[in-house]
């Protein structure tokens, strides 16, 4: 017989578990089944291995594989190599205002980030005109740059959190021993934060391997879309344009991605959950043993800031320009007349998109909160499901969103929720909830145990102590996590692309249509009739939730993202 405590703890996990089975596990199986379905000449469905054979004959597939490979390797490598010095400088300079500024580009909608780069790198009307008049989007390295730009801050944050968690007495001991600068970094700091380094690396691998948003934005205006395409984007494209044949081949690629990410996920799960063993050797005697002068550290930080903030500045400037100045050749850097026409246009034309985004993101955050928070608490405090449940969470987290696309369409069709707010709200948690649960799991792991014990002694059940004591005391952790959930939902692109096809009809009594602001921003850029000013103003507005998150969370942001070595 299981104790009532255990039973109640299990009930707290159940909604999240059922959700993940329906919306994450079932789609993977469904994809696998679809790979065997193709169409005969007469139009009837045939079962077989045709999709597997044909998928690898698609025109440009070798370039697509090469690109995927490049994104998977180059992005994490460059990220980590750039993040270690940046995190070290941030710790050294110890200026609390620097971290939020550095972090911004990792917390904005990916589409917005991609739009900024497409604007800036335009060789005729963008900032690129002043550097070299070449179209970088003919090379996959353009996507690598955007990926690094959006993921470097996250890698930096994880490494910075690790560095900040080194106890002061270890720093003082190395001061006594005379270790400084690079020697201390390699001899003491990096081995000490090995877990954070590995977690950051794996996260960046996941990040790079299934790049979607920048390719979507860039290829709509690109002259050679295959040059930058990867498997993730190709599978979406096949489904959108290829009918039943395309669907089968897309399913093959999605299954392939599932397998690859399962391998990466296994690695990730093992790294995140294992007890950290640290080992290091005295092999860094050649490293300079001197503190870097503060001025030089500042110089490098400023270089980083130029890279990280330049796209923001360009977008901001664009949003206040008149149309004539936006398309002027050579480009105008500072607008001669500041106009708010773009903002005015974007809130009028973009209104239905903004409304859908706000409602869907709010709804998703609430749903994630109701399902995720009890589960996170239960697995953290009552070890429900042991490590298995949290491993499932990390597994789903490391899957590319695009693989859920086809089955989600089928699911929503069957309940007539396609192209509706509810459709997006019930499906979004599949990519929002895992990270939310993981963050709350870490949050509750550091929560004082005696609170539950006191509640238990006062005669409260697991439910009672969770809903009446713990929830009320975890306001700060939950609010930051929910705000983060909100901005992930806010920045979502693949699901709204696949699951909605018209904007909100502006009828609150009979709402219909659910296209989001990300579609408004990302989907219009390639069209001939689009308005630059309106688009850049909408992009600036789309940054607001991210800026709010970073502002509210600035004091504890390094603690919430502390990954690795938290269990065991």
């Amino acid at each position: 017989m299981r104790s009532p405590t255990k039973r109640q703890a299990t009930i707290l996990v159940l909604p999240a578990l059922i959700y993940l089975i329906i919306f994450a596990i079932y789609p993977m199986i469904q994809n696998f089944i679809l790979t065997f379905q193709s169409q005969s000449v007469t139009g009837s469905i045939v079962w077989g291995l045709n999709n597997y054979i044909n998928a690898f004959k698609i025109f440009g597939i070798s370039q697509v594989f090469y690109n995927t490979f490049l994104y998977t390797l180059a992005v994490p490598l460059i990220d980590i190599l750039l993040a270690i010095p940046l995190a070290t400088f941030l710790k050294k300079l110890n200026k609390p205002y620097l971290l939020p500024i550095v972090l911004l580009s990792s917390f904005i909608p990916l589409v917005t980030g991609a739009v900024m780069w497409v604007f800036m790198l335009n060789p005729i009307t963008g900032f690129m005109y002043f550097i070299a008049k070449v179209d970088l989007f003919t090379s996959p390295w353009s996507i690598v740059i955007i990926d690094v730009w959006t993921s470097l801050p996250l890698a930096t944050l994880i490494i910075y959190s690790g560095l900040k968690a080194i106890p002061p007495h270890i720093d003082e001991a190395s001061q006594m021993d005379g270790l400084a600068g690079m020697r201390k970094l390699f001899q003491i700091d990096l081995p000490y934060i090995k877990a954070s380094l590995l977690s950051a690396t794996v996260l960046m691998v996941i990040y790079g391997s299934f790049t979607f948003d920048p390719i979507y934005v860039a290829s709509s205006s690109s002259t050679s879309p295959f040059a930058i395409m990867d498997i993730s984007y190709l599978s979406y494209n096949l489904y959108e344009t290829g009918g039943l044949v395309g669907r089968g081949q897309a399913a093959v690629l999605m299954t392939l991605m599932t397998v690859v990410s399962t391998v990466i996920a296994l690695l990730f799960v093992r790294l995140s959950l294992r007890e950290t063993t640290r080992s290091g050797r005295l092999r860094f005697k050649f490293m300079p043993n001197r503190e870097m002068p503060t001025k030089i550290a500042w110089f490098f930080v400023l270089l980083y800031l130029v890279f990280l903030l330049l796209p923001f500045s360009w977008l901001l400037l664009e949003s206040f320009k008149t149309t004539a100045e936006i398309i002027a050749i050579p480009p105008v850097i500072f607008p001669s007349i500041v106009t708010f026409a773009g903002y005015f246009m974007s809130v009028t034309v973009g209104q239905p998109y903004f409304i859908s985004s706000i409602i869907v993101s709010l709804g998703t955050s609430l749903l994630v909160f109701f399902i995720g928070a009890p589960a996170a608490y239960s697995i953290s405090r009552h070890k429900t499901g042991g490590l298995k449940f949290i491993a499932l969470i990390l597994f789903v987290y490391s899957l590319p969103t695009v693989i859920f696309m086809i089955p989600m369409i089928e699911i929503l069709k069957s309940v007539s929720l396609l192209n509706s707010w509810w459709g997006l709200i019930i499906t979004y948690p599949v990519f929002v909830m895992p990270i939310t649960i993981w963050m709350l799991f870490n949050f509750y792991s550091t929560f004082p145990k005696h609170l539950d014990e006191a509640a238990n002694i006062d005669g409260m059940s697991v439910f009672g102590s969770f809903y009446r004591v713990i929830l009320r005391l975890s306001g700060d952790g939950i609010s930051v996590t929910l705000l983060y959930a909100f901005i992930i939902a806010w920045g979502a692109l693949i699901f709204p692309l696949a699951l909605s096809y018209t904007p909100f009809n502006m009828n609150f009594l009979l709402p219909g249509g659910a296209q989001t602001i990300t579609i408004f921003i990302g989907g219009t850029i390639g069209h001939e009739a689009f308005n630059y000013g309106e688009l850049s103003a909408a992009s600036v507005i789309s940054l607001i939730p991210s800026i709010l998150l970073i502002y509210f969370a600035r004091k504890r942001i390094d603690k919430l993202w502390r990954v690795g070595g938290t269990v065991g």
Partner: protein
Amino acid sequence: MSSQFEMHNIRKSFGKFLALSLESLQFDQKTYAVVLGPSGSGKTTLLRIAAGLETPDHGSVIISGQDVTSLPSWKRRVGLVFQNYALYPHLTVYENIAMPLTVGRYTNEYIGERVHELLGVMELEGQEKKYPKQLSGGQQQRVALARALIKKPDILLMDEPLSNLDARVRIDLRDYLKETQRKLGITAIHVTHDQEEAMALGDQIVILNKAHIVQSGTPTEIYSKPQTLFAASFLGGINLISSELLPDLGLRKDFDALGIRIQDITLSIDKESTEMIGKVVNIQYLGYQYIVTTEFAGTRLRVRMDSLNGISEETEVGIYLDTTKVMLFRDGNRIPIEEEERLGNPA
């Protein structure tokens, strides 16, 4: 003997909080010095200033005749044992001990030699490949000690080095610390809040309270001649009685508290020859002696007795103070027992 360690006019504040303020402090070569004080008294600040982990607002630190106030820690010829040892968790015992030498220009042979020498001194042979986590608290302590000693410092600094250990290990290591200090002929500065530890180890004890030095001297001096009420009470084993509660003991009248050590009081069932009557409330038997607590005029007095002589709990007893051994305090400072002593005898 020449002076090995000096501090002059040191002052250190953290914001508005004055952490340490002392005019001068000096320890001779090969002294085992103990800095004793309650938490917040400034003793750790003193040690951290000596180690170079904290810069004083003003004043100077002199080690072996050289002014080191502006020198970084590793150039000061001091070794520091941290309260929680601060061993590098990712390095082995060998690597932890060797670390300070890897920074200088030493050959690997020399480093190996030194490490093995210290492993011998610290009785850690065979442990060199283990990680700190795999060692007991006492062993970790000795690794930290070895790391602090490997550069042959002039002064060994120790911040509450025994506070993280079990009571029994603590006593063993206490002997060990003193023996090691004697064997290496090194000057040691040991910071603690434990008066018993201070008495047991110190050649010289400095008592700190609220950022100031209260008293400095040998353990005997400090124990038998505490200069202030704080020093007397912090060393423990003393009863403090407010002057209003006392009958005329034939002493001067202008004191506000009387202190008497627990061994200088006698309790007896005979209540005839004293005006102080108390009631026994508790008897602790410690194996070789008794600590009897008795209630007197609303305060509790503790008395050390070798035998109970018929006293048991609830007994009414006569209290006899050895008036030659009492200490009198006024405004927190010690005053002589008889006024004449100080004023000189006018008659």
